[in-house]
């Protein structure tokens, strides 16, 4: 019950913070008519997420079926927040309520409200269902969760009231609130409560892939030979660009860029015009008030930037050791299936990568690996990709496989998808008892096709 209460409290607090920020901004502006609806939309988004999860459960769908889509959706939502913060930079909420901008701003405000907690709602419902299953009773678990949500809601309402009283609305701009919402998404107060906080890692992995693709592109365009033919210093220089810490630094800079651009626009906004004939002391007071608002308003941007950078930096992949198991020999059953025993003394921990080698008549050795995804499903892929030389992969922490050639971390969630740096998938693998059966022809033909392109 305590688990359910705390999980719901954290998910609720995530939404309550977002709702309070939005409410304070909108309540004191010309967009005040959507202040309450936007806050309600946050709660509605949570309810929609919970309802969708329960409906999916009733239809027999497992969390694994929709978790990748949820995570992609969450990442795109964060990207949209960054884009909106950039678009709204330098504008007050009142400025967004003029002319054609008003309906757009109102729809965007409500949509953001709905989307803030919808994925967390799905994840929370799954989490609570698991807890109910383990505890043998659903009512206490859901009751505790409602209590947690109620406490979070009360905290959010209290925070909103306090901020309004303190006049925080004068110092908040739409761009600042959007930046804070982006930072909250990256910090993942709610998603980490239900063990599904992957956004910073997704962002870092995306940056890694972009840098890696750029280096590859440069190699291809300039016809640079492989590292075995380069002086060591030259290749070490190239490897600097492929280090996870560099990727995390670039990722932090990229994520902070729209926030900093919005902050810059806020600081450089024009001072309000002072009426002709105003006395010098009044002018100075007006000027001081403007500077104070700028300083206080900057706090929101600074917090958002610091939180985002910290979230990305803490998710950098390079801090974990590589796990590179020796391939275990496997044979086929004579009926077209390669038999991979999943149990036995070499099995190791269940979430660890395992490599296997299948000897094809003719002396060729096909190496492939299996790794468990966060959703519990098992991915089977060749130990090589379409692009790099076949140096293979190792496991990096629990969430990544790591290309040993180009030093690129690949999220485990994308293993099994074809293309680019992903290890080449082997379709059709199925678990039968404690044995994994891999279609021999699919395995060998995937390997042969890939090697012919090398």
């Amino acid at each position, binding site marked *: 019950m305590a688990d359910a209460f705390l999980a719901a409290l954290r998910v609720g607090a995530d939404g309550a913070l977002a709702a309070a920020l939005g409410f304070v901004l909108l309540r004191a502006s010309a967009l005040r008519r959507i202040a309450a609806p936007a806050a309600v939309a946050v709660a509605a988004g949570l309810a929609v997420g919970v309802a969708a999860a329960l409906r999916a459960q009733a239809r027999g769908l497992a969390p694994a079926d929709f978790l990748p889509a949820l995570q992609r959706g969450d990442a795109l939502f964060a990207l949209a927040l960054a884009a909106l913060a950039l678009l709204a930079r330098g504008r007050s909420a009142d400025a967004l309520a003029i002319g054609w901008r008003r309906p757009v701003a109102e729809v965007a405000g409500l949509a953001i409200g709905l989307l803030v907690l919808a994925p967390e709602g799905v994840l929370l419902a799954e989490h609570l269902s698991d807890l109910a299953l383990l505890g043998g009773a659903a009512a206490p678990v859901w009751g505790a969760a409602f209590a947690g949500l109620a406490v979070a809601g009360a905290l959010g309402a209290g925070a909103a009231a306090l901020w309004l009283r303190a006049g925080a609305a004068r110092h908040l701009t739409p761009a600042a609130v959007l930046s804070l919402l982006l930072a909250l998404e990256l910090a993942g107060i709610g998603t980490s409560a239900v063990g599904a906080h992957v956004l910073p890692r997704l962002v870092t992995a995306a940056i890694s892939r972009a840098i890696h693709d*750029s280096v590859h592109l440069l190699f291809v*365009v*300039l016809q640079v030979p492989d590292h075995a033919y380069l*002086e060591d210093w030259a290749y070490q220089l190239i490897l600097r660009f492929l280090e996870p810490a560099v990727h995390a630094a670039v990722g932090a800079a990229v994520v902070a860029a729209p926030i900093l651009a919005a902050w810059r626009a806020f600081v450089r906004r024009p001072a309000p015009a002072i009426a002709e004939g105003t006395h010098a002391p009044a002018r100075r007071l007006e000027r001081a008030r403007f500077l104070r608002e700028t300083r206080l308003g900057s706090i929101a941007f600074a917090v958002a930037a610091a939180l985002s950078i910290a979230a990305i930096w803490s998710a950098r992949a390079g801090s974990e050791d590589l796990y590179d198991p020796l391939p275990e020999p496997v044979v086929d059953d004579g009926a077209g299936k390669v038999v991979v025993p999943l149990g036995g003394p070499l099995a190791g921990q269940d979430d660890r990568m395992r490599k296997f080698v299948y000897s094809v008549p003719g*002396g060729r*050795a096909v190496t492939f690996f299996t790794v468990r995804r966060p959703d519990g499903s098992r991915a089977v892929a060749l130990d090589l990709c379409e692009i790099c030389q076949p140096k293979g992969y190792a496991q990096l922490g629990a969430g990544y496989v790591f290309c040993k050639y180009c030093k690129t971390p690949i999220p485990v969630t994308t293993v099994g998808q074809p293309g680019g740096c992903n290890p080449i998938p082997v379709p059709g693998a199925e678990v039968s008892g404690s044995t994994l059966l891999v279609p021999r022809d699919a395995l060998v033909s995937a390997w042969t096709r890939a090697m012919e392109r090398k």
Partner: protein
Amino acid sequence: MRVGVAMRPPLATWSSRLAGLAARLLIAFAFYAAALELGGSIGLVGAVGSPIGLALLGASGLLFLGAAVCAGLAAGPRGLRAARALVLSGLGLSVAALPASLAFRTGGTVAVGEGQTLEPDALQGLPALRFGSVALAPRGPHVLSKTVEIEAEPEGGEPVRIGLFPPTAVAGWRLSVFRFGYAVAVGWAQRSPAPLVDGYVMLGTFPHTAEEAALVTWTPEPNVMMGAGTFPPKLEDLLTPPRSGAHLFLRLEEATIGGKRRDLRDPDAYRWLVDGRLEGAVFHVEALQGKEKLFEGRLRAGESATYPGGAITLGPDVLLWVDLLGTRDPWLAVLGAGLALLAGGVALRSVLAVVGLVRRQAARRT
């Protein structure tokens, strides 16, 4: 004195507006690429090569170029105008040339042996090329740690050397060595006086079915990256002349490389292969008719062997062949020019800023 660009409207204004719009398009491209990556695992190359990516980058490049023209024609100090025009034109050319290079780049590979003449148009527009010998060395120039290069003489042109990097320009193509391999002269007759094979055999280039491959024992391939692009040179191959039912398996097993005798069956043999040419090579040879093995033994290069129903002769030298990678990319030069202009503009602007600073300090002192 304040250093700044004092330009007369409207050209100066137009330059700023166009540059601002171009920058916005670049930011839009960044968000588009990020959305593709986060939403669909489509990488940067895919984003650049997509129609929307091409349109955004192309339009941004053109707008930067327009801004550069306006900046160059606007009023103001000549140096500052030039610096701004250089930076903007460099940005424009670079941003526009990158997707154009990806979209319009053509490429191909062609395998050539030592002493071979390549027919014209082996790659479209490439003239006939006569090739000399391949040079291998465990050292290389500039950033290269090894040398793999071949002499080539275009028809009616000056001889050139095509190596690993940088590519050599020949008739609009940029040629570089992609990988290399071994070739040995083989004379082989079996069950008939007519030769089944009489010529150079390039090891590692012959296709065979799984059934044919199962007739002999292959050396496990080293799981390493090497070769000028790909793998170590192949040391063995199985020849199956069409409609003969005969098979000849050749494997390089031993040779002197760079003055040292090497066992090429060693799993780490790939490390020595770029040390030099093979001398005193010894081959493992198997001759089969269907599944029946008629001959199995070791032959030195230059030796012959006869067996019931057949005879094999190996040439005295092991020659080299290379796969040449050719690309034709007119936009690469544009990209290079853009980067050069950009660097020039930044350098000029920096110099002007320093000069301005020095002058201001001198003015303060006086």
